[in-house]
Each structure stands twice: as structure tokens, then as C-alpha cells.
């Protein structure tokens, strides 16, 4: 079943097409990878889906409802959450308070007690209990990114968009992040991830979309992608 679907999505900045007539879909409970060279339009596509920016044309539907043009907070309330490439944690709140904000505002009609419970649940789910009272600025990058993921998870999403959660992590941390991502999928959440760490993409994703200069140049299973001549030419090869 398709949970998210985009057709003919376009976005230009000035004269440059950042996302050029892209069609995509995401199946329920899959992990979809989004790869491509820097500037390929991956983050722009995330911004279009999450409502941070508006598409010039094209439609994005989520659970059968058109979400293109909606405000980010409404899209979040509908169950679509995201993280940012550069972690945007709230600096003057503790780790726990950061996650709590997601739980308080993420779903309409969550009372305080439920939000508190949800927060503690998420903190232990992602393994941040030991850092709950720390400031997000005082912990390692891998943990900071984990706080972002936890805050997004606290909004109770059905679809979670992860923007390079592994960038800047060492191999051990990448392994831990991979474990976390499979665990999140295991809990029934659909995942779209942008990533440059090929090992992670190839072993986690059910399907991969390759973007280049804003265009979708290839789509398929990890095996298909790693054997595709187009992809090798523009991205992996040279």
C-alpha cells in the first residue's frame, strides 16, 4: 500500500531546477533510500514533503490526502515527521525537554501526562536515558542526532524522514544508528532516508531512488542500483 505519493513535483530556485519533475511513492512500512551527489535535490525534496517550502507544481499526497501547500505543523499532526541535516535541537532545553516538546505538540489532544509517558518511552527506545538531563550542546554528535530522531519520534509519526543522520559518525556509531533505524521500522514506522553512507543504505533500504541535478535517474532495489550503469556513471563511478 502506498502511504506517500508524489507526482510531477517541481521546484526551482532562481533559474536552477532543484527538483525537476520527480515522481515517487513510498510503500507502507518500507525503508526508502534517497541518494545522489551533493546538490542533487534530496533535501529540497524533503523540504517539499514536510511543507517547509512550497512546490512550484506537482502534487504530494499522504494517506490519500493532498499535503502539498499545507503548513509543516499540519503535516506533522497528520503523522509525517522529519529530522534536519544539521541537528536543530533546542539548545536551552535538556535532552528530555527536547523530546517532550515533540510529544506535547506533535499530536493534537495529547495531555501532559501522556506526553510525559511517551517521552520516557522514546528516551529508552532510542537509548538516551543516561543523557536525559544533559544539554544537547554538551553531548557527542551521534547523540545529538539521536535527540533529533527521538524528538521526531515523539510526535508519533507514521512516516519518518531522516536527513543524513549518519553524516559525521564513526563506524561504530554508524552501526548503532543502523540498528536504531531497523528498530524504528520494526515498530511499524515507514522510513525515508537521505544518506551518503553506502553501507547503511545498501543494507537497510528496501528500495532506493537516485536523484541527479534534481531529476530521478534510477529507482529500484539496492542490488539493482548498485548494478545500474546510469548510477555508476553519475554517482558511484568516475
Amino acid at each position, binding site marked *: 500500500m502506498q502511504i506517500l505519493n508524489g507526482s510531477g513535483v517541481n521546484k526551482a530556485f532562481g533559474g536552477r531546477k532543484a527538483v525537476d519533475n520527480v515522481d515517487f511513492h513510498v510503500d507502507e512500512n518500507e525503508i526508502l533510500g534517497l541518494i545522489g551527489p551533493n546538490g542533487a535535490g534530496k533535501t529540497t525534496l524533503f523540504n517539499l514533503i514536510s511543507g517547509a517550502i512550497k512546490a512550484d507544481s506537482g502534487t504530494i499526497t499522504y494517506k490519500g490526502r493532498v499535503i502539498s501547500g499545507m503548513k509543516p505543523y499540519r503535516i506533522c499532526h497528520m503523522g509525517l515527521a522529519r529530522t534536519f541535516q544539521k541537528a536543530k535541537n533546542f539548545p536551552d532545553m535538556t535532552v528530555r525537554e527536547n523530546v517532550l*516538546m515533540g510529544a506535547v505538540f506533535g499530536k493534537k489532544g495529547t495531555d501532559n501526562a501522556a506526553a510525559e509517558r511517551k517521552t520516557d518511552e522514546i528516551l529508552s527506545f532510542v537509548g538516551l536515558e543516561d543523557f536525559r538531563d544533559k544539554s544537547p550542546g554538551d553531548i557527542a554528535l551521534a547523540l545529538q542526532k539521536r535527540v533529533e530522531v527521538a524528538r521526531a519520534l515523539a*510526535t508519533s509519526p507514521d512516516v519518518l524522514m531522516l536527513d543524513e543522520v549518519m553524516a559525521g559518525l564513526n563506524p561504530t556509531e554508524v552501526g548503532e544508528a543502523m540498528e536504531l533505524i531497523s528498530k524504528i521500522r520494526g515498530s511499524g514506522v515507514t522510513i525515508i532516508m537521505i544518506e551518503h553512507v553506502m553501507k547503511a543504505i545498501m543494507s537497510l533500504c528496501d528500495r532506493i531512488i537516485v536523484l541527479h541535478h534534481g531529476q530521478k535517474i534510477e529507482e529500484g532495489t539496492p542490488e539493482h542500483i548498485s548494478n545500474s550503469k546510469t548510477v555508476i556513471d553519475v554517482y558511484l563511478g568516475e
Partner: protein
Amino acid sequence: MKLINEYKANPKKLILPVLVAALLVLLGLSPNFTKPYATIMLGTIMMYIILSLSWNMFSGATGYVSLATAAFFGVGVYVSAFFGSSLSLPLLMLMGGIFSFVIAFLVGAVTLRLRGVYFTIFTLGIVKLLEQLMLYLEITFNKTRGRFVVSYTFTEVFYWLFILMILVILLSVFIKRTRFGLALKCIAEGEDAAMHIGIGSTMVKILAFAISSFAMGAAGAAMATRWTYIDPYIAFSTNLSFLPVLMVIFGGGRHVFGPLIGAVVFAYIQELLITDFPYVYMLAFGVIMIVSIIFMPNGIVGVIENIVGRIKKAKGGRKNADP
């Protein structure tokens, strides 16, 4: 919730509110035993407290620095000028507040898409726009620049300002403990992230902007009845846009009592300087500002918190000192 119920968890934090309440009672009774001069000065100080606290309610909470305070204050002033003869003082204040609220709501809907310095410049523009608009209207239709305002006694104005101030203090404390206040805090700490965890930031900002403007308009309506004569330059004096900002910086914006203390100290210094050194008082203000920004970036309250924090640390450190 931890953030919301921190006062309940720690009764020690009640000391300050109780102290302030006692001072307020004393202040409320003061016209009975002080000279009229003191009542006038205290009224002015309360006006500054109202403006600083309501400025802090929006700008301090969100980090959007607004310089539109004088605009909403001026709207209140003109409400009194136009309707002063037909309405009582509390009704004038209410109406000044409502007019300011509505204008702020509309202005906010247009300008709160701007961020950072662009927003700040635009808000200052609103003051000038209203000032020039009123000037044009007065000269075109009234053939003179200013007009007389119905006047109330200093004591009457004092009491109504006092009531407004209490309401603003209570509202400032209350907002911080609501989800609305939490949403404002999230916006200040990272608006993009706030929007993506389900906070409708545009509406939250517009509402906070309008609520804070209500008190500014009400204060303007009250003060106008003390001045008897007003013109657009008096009503929309940009001093009232900048002074509350300085007072909040001076007192410290993170705690509700920061703007309060800042306004009291600053307004008192202003009064002293303006009577003794009328020509250099702005210069002296500038020096005080620079010194306080360098040496107490979190204001007077920040300094106090630092001292309290050190005392606590010294106590706690002895108890759980590592061998």
C-alpha cells in the same frame, strides 16, 4: 510537566513572588501617604513596567525584536483623544487595548513572515507610518496638529495603571506556564524545528504579538488622560519603542521579574538624570546601556541568578565533593 509546574515542585521559588506581592500592596496604597510628585513618578514607572513586560511577552519570548511599542501606545493615546469625552477611563483603556490588539493582529499577519532584523526595521516603520498618517489626517481635517484630551487626576490614572500592571504581571507569569508559552519558547530556540514538531508558529506569533500590544494600547489610553494635550509626535514618540527594550536588556528578559526590575531602576535613573542633567541624560543612558550589556548580558536578574547559583554550588559542592 516539569517546565510548567516548576514552582509547585520548589516552594522556595515562592519567596520572590511573595516579596513582590508585598511591594505591590505597598505601592497600591502609596498615593495615600506620599506627595503628588511621587504618585506621578510612580505612575510613569508603572507605565514603563507595563510596556517592558508586554514587550517581553512577545519579543523576549520569541526573539523577534519588535520596535512597534510606540505605535500601539500611540493608538491608545488617540483612542483617548477621540473618545475621551464620552467614555470612562477604564473603558478608554479597554478600547485602546482592543484597537491595538486588532491592529497588531493585522500587522503581525503581514510582517511576522519576516525574520530577524527585517522584522525589527518593519516594526519601527509602523511607528513612523502611524505618526505621519495621523499628522496628515489632523492637518487635513482638523487644521491643527494636536488636540486636547480629557484629563483625569494623577491618582485616578495611577490606580488604573496599577490594575493594568497587575494584570500584565499575572499574564506574563501565566503565559509562561501554558502550552502557548512553551510554543513561544520553542519558536525562540529554533523556529524551523518548532514548525516541524507540530507548532503552528505563524499563528502563535501573531497571537502573542497582538496580546502584548493590548497592554501597550491600554497604557497609552491611560497616559494620554494625564497629558491633556497630545499631537502625533507625542503619541508616537520612538522613545517608547526603544526604552522598553533597553529596560528588558537591563533587567534581564528570561525571568518575569527582569523587565519589572529593569523598568523600575531605569525609569528612576531617567527621572534623576532628566531633572539634574537634562542635556546629557541620553548620553548617560547610552553609557549605562553599553556597560550593562558588556558586564551583565543577562541583566540584573542574570547577575542575581549567578550569585544564587554560586551560593548553591558552594553548599552542594561541600556535600557531594569527590574524594
